């Protein structure tokens, strides 16, 4: 509906006065900006933290895999050593090279109470020739 002005209520332009009220202000943006910055920072921080944790978890998993690989390799190397040291491998090779098992035991008895012979300088020199 359109308001219809009652002719009897038309205002005398001379009676119009300006009433000065409060200034119309723009809404304060500062706090909102701060809140936004904090929110965004917090969100990014959470994201970064989560990413770091994930990365650390991946690295841990990779390390655990690497440990398992090295442990398996260690076992393989132990096996290789045991095979190389096996008498069943070494004995035939030694025999091919002409080596034999010692069949007698020689004992060297040293009398610690006995005085050792002392050589003269000239004799020592001769003995070294």
């Amino acid at each position: 509906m359109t308001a219809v002005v009652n002719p009897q209520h038309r205002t005398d332009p001379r009676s119009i006065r300006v009433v000065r009220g409060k200034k119309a202000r723009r809404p304060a943006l500062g706090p909102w900006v701060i809140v936004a910055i904090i929110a965004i920072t917090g969100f990014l921080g959470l994201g970064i933290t989560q990413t770091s944790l994930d990365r650390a978890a991946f690295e841990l998993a990779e390390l655990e895999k690497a440990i398992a690989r090295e442990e398996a390799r260690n076992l393989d190397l132990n096996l290789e050593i045991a095979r190389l040291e096996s008498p069943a491998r070494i004995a035939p090779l030694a025999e091919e090279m002409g080596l034999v098992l010692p069949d007698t035991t020689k004992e060297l008895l040293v009398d610690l109470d006995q005085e050792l012979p002392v050589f003269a300088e000239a004799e020592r020199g001769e003995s070294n020739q």
Partner: protein
Amino acid sequence: MPSDPKPRSAKIRLAIVGVFVVLAWLGMGYRLFHIQVLAAPDLAKQGLEQRLVERDLAPQRGKIFDRNGEILALTVDSQSLFAVPEQVVEPLWVAQQIGGLLGVDTDALYERLTTGKNFVYIKRQVDKATAQQVLDLEVPGVYAHPEPTRVYPAGATASHVTGFVDIDGVGREGLELVYNDALTGIPGKAVFERGLDGTPILQGISDIVPATPGVDLHTTIDLPLQYQAQNACMEAVETTGADSCWVVALHVETGEVLAMTGAPVFDPQTRRTLDPACDESEDPATCRAFRNFIVRGIYEPGSTQKLITVAAALEEKEVDIGTVIPDVADELELKPGACEDEDDDVYGCYRDFSNHDTMDMTVADIFAQSSNIGTIKIGEKLGQRRLVQYIEAFGLGTRTGVDYTAEAAGLLNFEAGCDICWASASIGYSVAATPLQMAAAYAAVGNDGMWISPHLVAAKADVDGETEVAAVTTRQVVSPTTARLMRDLLARAVDEGTGIQGSVENYRVGGKTGTANRLGDDGRYTDETRASFVGMAPISDPKVVVAVVIDNPSHEYRTGGLAAAPVFAQVMEQALHRLGVTPDNGG
């Protein structure tokens, strides 16, 4: 000019649409509320159940070491090759190529690849290098998965000690079986969240109870000595034409088994005997049979038993080594007509190995010359009751308690009414013992009369390094004086008697030969023999006892002195060198 008012119907339609929109939003809102609030716990639980996976973590099987720390058995990772037959495009080509590479029968593999199953093994537990060669062929339908496999780096050398495991790593023989639970360890459990592709969600729920590895066994075996002993046995079988040869070496003072082996040898990796005379296509059961005569085989020890008879008589002071036993003939008839009976239907005839005139012999001579008749006369002074008492005290007829599977107890045949069994038992018949029992009995004499239970494992070590040492049992069988006298007699048996081929250069050896006839299927004695030699060195302070049993050597080598004594000498010499025993200038 005032505007025209909207028609009433438009307002109604707008209101209806508005209601629907509101209802739709309310519905979505309620659904969200239902999912996020009311049903959330159940849905979260369902999701978790879908993501959660529970896996058993297999423990690492413990290793087996010899006394010097050499590995006798360990478990390593390998690859098991399998195929999905429906994905294999050219099964014949695959069978030929891959079968040839792996040494698998091509026909059998082809048959498996054409079964229509969705999973068949090509070959399990293949080493990684070979598996990679197969995978490098990039054959469709052929894959590999990791599988632990038990490996024996020493090959067949220690197989009579370690035994073996089956394809699934479960102990089936020997130490692998006796200590299977300890070697296996305790499985762990892993519960974790996984994604759609099966990979673990790293930040998700993860609860891991790690597996506890099995304990490691530290055996008493000396691997180089074990190898030498096995070699000596293999040579003896070849030289004497025997069916088999068995040797065991014990540490006198501790009861530790230094070597336990024989021929034919057994390969624990392939689980087959390495006897070249064995044809698996004709006799698969025999060719795959695992034998250990040392612990499980019983035999009549023959003259080696005389140690017990004479020791008992000395201990009971019925005789001393200088006592003269009069009228020792080369034949003794305990039952009338026994010696005239050609069919051996009447028992009770005993003869010495060689003919000789009837003579007076000292106990020492009787033992050195291994006179059956003389020994029976000594046994007669003891009587059956005391003879049996000492036979049992020396460990015959009872398990030694060695940590090995299926140990035989042996037999003592003194049935009621058998009035000549004591005579037979005096000279090693009517009694059946294992080579291990005989070695332990001789070790008691070497250890000043103290019998010690033989054992194969010195200690068990868990993952934390804590060790559990094996317990032994001991008992005094004869006095140290009697033991010393018996050692002197044993030394004479080697120096002057039938055991001369058992001598070792630079060491004084004491030992006894044994030649026992084998029983035939009809229960009568045959001409086939079991030749044995049991002895110790150095006689002044024995450190090692070795027992050798050779089964059915050819006639030319039928006696213990000819067949078994040379093997004893080889093994004893190596054992003394390995232990660094100072020579006592014998030989």
